[in-house]
């Protein structure tokens, strides 16, 4: 039974995706409210493997290292993960050159997400799409409600603390025109709050986005995931709720299936 009213379905059979995100620093998983108060909570490869077996449709590593020295560890992590996990792996955080992309793909990443570096130099998007294809490129946007922008949403950097002086919807359109193959939309108002996804923002982005849209930021209970999909997201991403075990990926998928959405049910 299809109770969904989303007008965006392109296929009678494509499953909505549930993505587990791991924030990684110096080889360890961390996640804190609004990116402050980071807590150490585990080995990324082990955790990714657990999510894989629990039915995650994709894994995302977000490298939040501050230094290049710390950043080197991510390549090793990606290599070890690719040995154990046979679902798509996206890596983001600090990707700022074609060499970074090449190294990560060769280590075993399938997709690369870019954020700040693309804001600084939008042509990076064109170059990555040209050399590696749009399908590897996720444009990650940390957006926030801000009335002074026409769409009502602005792009931020530094964990939502600084404005990038760009209207979020205009930036998204530009990034897709330049060749981004997917959008990771993170609500900085909701990130870490467990108050639910910013549904209005998802709807607004869906209206302008012709590529797949991942909703992120604010998941607190299983209902939130269904609402994000109903608002037009193709995929939902969460970190801390999975991470601390308050919700399992299986529970999210069961909930989505009960709402009539198609999910991938056969696990490992």
């Amino acid at each position, binding site marked *: 039974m299809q109770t969904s009213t989303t007008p965006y379905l*392109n*296929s009678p059979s494509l499953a909505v995706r549930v993505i587990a995100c791991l924030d990684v620093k110096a080889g360890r998983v961390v996640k804190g409210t609004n990116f402050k108060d980071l807590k150490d909570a585990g080995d990324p490869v082990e955790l990714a493997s657990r999510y894989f077996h629990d039915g995650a449709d994709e894994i995302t590593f977000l490298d939040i290292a501050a230094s290049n020295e710390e950043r080197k560890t991510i390549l090793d992590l990606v290599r070890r993960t690719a040995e154990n996990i*046979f*679902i798509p792996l996206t890596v983001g955080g600090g990707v700022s050159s074609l060499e970074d992309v090449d190294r990560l793909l060769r280590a*075993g990443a399938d997709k690369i997400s870019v954020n700040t570096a693309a804001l600084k130099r939008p042509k990076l998007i064109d170059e990555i799409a040209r050399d590696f294809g*749009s399908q590897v490129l996720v444009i990650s946007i940390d957006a926030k409600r801000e009335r002074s922008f026409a769409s009502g949403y602005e792009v931020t950097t530094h964990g939502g603390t600084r404005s990038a002086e760009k209207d979020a919807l205009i930036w998204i359109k530009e990034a897709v025109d330049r060749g981004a*193959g*997917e959008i990771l939309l993170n609500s900085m108002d909701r990130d870490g709050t467990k108050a639910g996804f910013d549904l209005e923002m998802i709807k607004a982005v869906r209206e302008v986005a012709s590529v797949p849209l991942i909703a992120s930021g604010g998941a607190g209970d299983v209902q939130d995931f269904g609402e994000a999909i109903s608002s037009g997201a*193709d995929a939902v991403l969460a970190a801390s709720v999975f991470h601390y075990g308050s919700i399992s990926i299986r529970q999210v998928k069961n909930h989505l299936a009960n709402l009539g959405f198609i999910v991938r049910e*056969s696990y490992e």
Partner: protein
Amino acid sequence: MIAILDYGSGNLRSAEQALLRTGERVEVTADFDKCLEASGLVVPGVGAFGKCMDGLLRVRGDELIRKRLELQRPTLAICVGLQILFAQSIESPESAGVGIFPEVVERLPAKVVPHMGWNKVESNRNSEVFAGIEDERFYFVHSYAVISPEVSEDLLPSWSDYGAKFVSALEYRSLVATQFHPEKSGSAGLKLLSNWTKKIGA
């Protein structure tokens, strides 16, 4: 030995690791003779059609694919690897494909493209590589596809649906090709790879 043709940037490591799970020896290489002699050759797809063809031509991959088909040696092409078996693609009209099949690869007529995620495959009844995984989901990420292939007796297409019905896998003589990524499709994908290595007796 299974050879994975290394002809450009991209994630070859996942294909290598997934094939190692089947218990076979695996080598990622661009060496023409090794690739010609290998018991199985894997041709991954990298980036856009034109870029992929450029890389392929540099290592004489087109010749390899044709020659192995002629010699009835098994080849598995993945993602854009499937597309380059055709004559041309709307994506890169200036580049000729390997041209085993005469069709032109088309853009998926859907509102949201790329087609990204886990989709069903309506596998061909006579397929060997889908044995035991006839009803599974596989991971896709692509914007272009083969939508209406010419029907021929020794071509076994499998189908999926995204904006249109398209060829999500095909088997033709010693050639197997998948539009999805078996190396990224969890246990279903691993099963497909082990079906293939068993079938070819690698």
